[in-house]
């Protein structure tokens, strides 16, 4: 039995932020994640570090939080960001009153903005709709979630804490007074169970927080909001482009590395694992995308994906606690820290729900404050002051950065495994040294392998061969997936994202890929499972 002070459930940005925060305050913390780190909502958002402008009208408190955290993250996590800048633009379809109210709402919420002459906008963004009537510049940026999560974990490790992945929470141990005493975990790859004792559980499971709370005997009504996005095959704009309208479908384009993300729909779903992108959503996103970049809908779409916002039904919680009447119900995007001690009779259980990736650090700080009060610890939060660990001389991402690094490198380690995303041999080997149990999909999150235009047509078998080579050298831990299983799973995963947008060039790409993997490689004939005995047919 491992003993820690706090177990954090959920390896997204928020949980990872809590892990770092509490570790820096001197607590012994263990983060557990049921899949890979950042494979839930944090890895399935549009990649935007909000300026706050999105919320100045609808939710000024969130806007102010975003603006402040934007500045904090630009300081503490430069290597996780690309400082794209952003615009809020009024298309002919957007309402006049929103446009008119925007500057003063920004001023009120502390969001820095400046009107941009249209001539300058059109020069900077040649593909943008020429019928745009007004534009404001904001401090939007794009943010790499996996690097951010990784940096939080690295910081936590420096302070003696750790994070485990592929560990599902299957039970919560409670003391005689009902308080939290420990957790039971199950390794989702080996089925092995183990216990960890702790005084506090932080439920940072996001859209899955209701399930975690239920295991501890508490009730939490989440209302997962599915947001679907499309990846366009190149950068259609250099800066983030938002619409001057109430948040709605297809209202943003975010340049992320070599592609653009077009977002986002909002559909309430029952099951946060239900992240299928529907044809209606694709149509809505493309139709609205055309309003920002005319002709966008006939450009090549590489992939679709969706994530579930960790929205919760605030009214319901309030109603159960304080008997507010039903009209006060609202689904809030703001974040809330919930102490389940008084509320549900589970002392030591805290949930952090709602919020957005931009404010993950603030959410972690507020959660950690509550945890520290409950444990009688007075150490202050230092996460806004200390830089997150990063590469030496960390600087924001720039489009030519990877290429420049590869050019400066030499030898076989600089050979590209994934041409689209410029992922080298040494990047993959380094990722595997850090986490030897990685699948190809895990490597994708560490390195962006297979995320470019060919969607893994070339790099999948190269990566599988590398995994096999390590397995032969005895470097594959027993819980790691078998290389063939990993290859098949990755092809299937890439296909899931391609299926809703399988037309035109991307359908052709799928056919060429199927031609290579079935026609030339006969992937369908690969043996399954490491432990299958060699057949006596050979020899």
């Amino acid at each position, binding site marked *: 039995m491992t003993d820690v002070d706090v177990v954090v459930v959920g390896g997204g940005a928020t949980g990872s932020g809590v892990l770092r925060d509490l570790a820096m305050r001197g607590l012994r913390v263990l983060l557990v994640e049921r899949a890979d780190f950042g494979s839930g909502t944090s890895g399935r958002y549009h990649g935007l570090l909000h300026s706050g402008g999105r919320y100045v009208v609808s939710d000024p408190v969130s806007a102010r939080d975003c603006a402040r955290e934007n500045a904090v993250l630009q300081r503490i996590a430069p290597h996780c960001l690309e400082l794209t800048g952003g615009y809020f633009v009024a298309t002919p379809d957007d309402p006049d009153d929103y446009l008119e109210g925007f500057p003063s709402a920004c001023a009120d919420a502390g969001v820095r903005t400046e009107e941009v002459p249209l001539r300058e906008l059109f020069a900077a963004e040649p593909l943008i709709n020429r019928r745009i009537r007004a534009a404001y510049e904001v401090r939007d940026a794009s943010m790499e979630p996996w690097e951010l999560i990784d940096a939080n974990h690295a910081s936590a490790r420096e302070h003696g804490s750790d994070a485990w992945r592929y560990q599902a929470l299957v039970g919560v141990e409670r003391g005689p007074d009902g308080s939290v005493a420990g957790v039971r975990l199950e390794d989702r790859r080996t089925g092995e169970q183990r216990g960890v004792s702790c005084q506090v559980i932080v439920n940072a499971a996001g859209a899955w927080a209701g399930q975690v709370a239920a295991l501890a005997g508490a009730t939490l009504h989440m209302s997962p909001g599915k947001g679907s996005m499309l990846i366009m095959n190149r950068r259609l704009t250099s800066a983030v482009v938002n619409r001057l309208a109430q948040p709605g479908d297809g209202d943003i384009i975010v340049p992320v590395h070599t592609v653009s993300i077009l977002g986002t729909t909002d559909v309430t779903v029952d099951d946060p694992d239900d992240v299928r992108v529907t044809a209606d959503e694709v149509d809505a996103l493309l139709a609205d995308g055309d309003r920002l970049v005319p002709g966008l809908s006939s450009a090549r779409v590489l992939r679709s994906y969706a994530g579930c916002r960790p929205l919760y039904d605030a009214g319901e919680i309030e109603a159960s606690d304080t008997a507010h009447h039903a009209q006060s119900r609202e689904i809030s995007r703001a974040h809330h820290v919930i102490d389940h001690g008084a509320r549900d009779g589970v002392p030591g259980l805290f949930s952090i729900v709602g919020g957005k990736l931009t404010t993950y650090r603030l959410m972690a700080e507020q959660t950690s404050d509550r945890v520290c009060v409950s444990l009688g610890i007075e150490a202050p939060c230092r996460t806004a002051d200390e830089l997150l660990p990063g590469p030496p001389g960390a600087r924001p991402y720039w489009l030519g950065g990877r290429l420049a690094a590869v050019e400066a490198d030499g030898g076989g380690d600089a050979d590209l495994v994934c041409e689209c995303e410029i992922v080298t041999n040494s990047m993959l080997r380094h990722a595997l040294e850090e986490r030897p149990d990685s699948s190809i999909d895990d490597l994708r999150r560490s390195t962006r392998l297979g995320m470019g235009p060919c969607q893994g047509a070339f790099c999948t078998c190269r990566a599988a061969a590398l995994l096999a080579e390590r397995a032969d050298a005895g470097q594959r831990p027993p819980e790691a997936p078998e290389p063939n299983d990993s290859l098949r799973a990755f092809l299937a995963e890439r296909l899931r994202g391609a299926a809703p947008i399988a037309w*035109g060039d991307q359908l052709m790409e799928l056919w060429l890929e199927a031609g290579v993997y079935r026609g030339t490689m006969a992937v369908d004939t690969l043996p399954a499972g490491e432990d299958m005995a060699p057949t006596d047919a*050979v020899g």
Partner: protein
Amino acid sequence: MPSADVVVIGAGLAGLTAAIELAERGATVQLVAKGMAATHWAHGGLDVAAPPGARSPANGVARLKARGGHPYAILEPDLGPALSATFARLAEMGLAYRGDLRTALRFFPTPIGGLRPAAIVPVGQAPALEPWSPGEGLLLLGIERFRDFWPPYAARNLARQVWNPGPSRIESAAAALPGILELRNLNSLVLARRFDDPSWRAAAVAALRATIPGKGRWRIAVPAVLGLERHADVLAEAGDALGHPVFEIPTLPPSIPGLRLFEALRARATAVGVRVQIGFEVAGVERDGDTITAVATHAAARPLRISTRDVVLGTGGIGGGGLRGRRDGALEEPILGLPVAAPGSAEWLGGDLYGAGGVALESAGIRVDDQLRPVDPGGGVVLRNVRVVGSALAGMRYLAERCGDGVALASGYRAARLIAGEASNPSAAEAPGPARTAVAS
């Protein structure tokens, strides 16, 4: 105004075969193609038919034909002569193939250690299909720094394959070839061009030889990079020097065996007088009722209009661009706007794209009559002087059935004979039943 007896659109196996057969019969032929063909992606063998359970290509064809709706239902009589003619012209261009319709399908090892059924392959791949004799081992011999061939991965999978009878032992090794270690991102094409150079080749073969484990009888598998233009020389030298039978395993694109096949046929086409224009997209066609009278291409300065009597459409399937999925869920034929038979878009990817059975959309294509003329859903001929050849044809699933090359050769051959007036009703004698029905029902 330029004119041709026949305009062939598409430079894959089907289009090139039709063009060559027509030119050899004295027709003036203009071949236009937007780009390179799917040969550059494929393994360079000739897949005629290997549906599950098939024992030989002929047996596979019989199975596919029996299922109905398959292009072989009308093309089967053309297959033998088409293959013979192809073998002869490839041999003449220095690219020999082995195997025929009666050759047993055997397992060909792939670079990741899969096993695919094959029977008709270029001579450089042929030793892979010889029966394994007792005591004979398979040595997977790779090249250091070459990213697209993985002997250890292949070896660990092949050792667990049901491959009966297979090699008695499987080992892997890698050779450091001279002067390439400082290159970046080595691909098949760079290596193949190096092998064309006789002095480099001698040193490279010596390095390969030095890597062979000391004892025992081996059959040696190397990546398919043994020369592009001087392949026959490279193959002969490697076989002599290594002292064991050697064969090539085709790997990720660009496929060197595919390039050799394409280059041999293109050279042959040029030699028999076909005007070959690659890199020229068709800009439009002119019609007179149900007849195409001219094809226009995007030439360098202005559209080039070629008047013609007959058209052969060999633009490929979805992978080749001959069929194009639209966002609204329709599948279209982009050049002539021919009717396409396809499942509803909700079923397109039903099945397993990476599994043996594939997905529903793979059988989509253009339905034709026994003259290879496109027909509408009612069976009526849409364009009287257009013949559809190759992977654009409906009713075949070239990955699941491994039949794409056979259909391409047979349909190209038949289209040429029809246009030349040699086969006005060719299948009537062979198959009186379905003679006048559309290929796909």
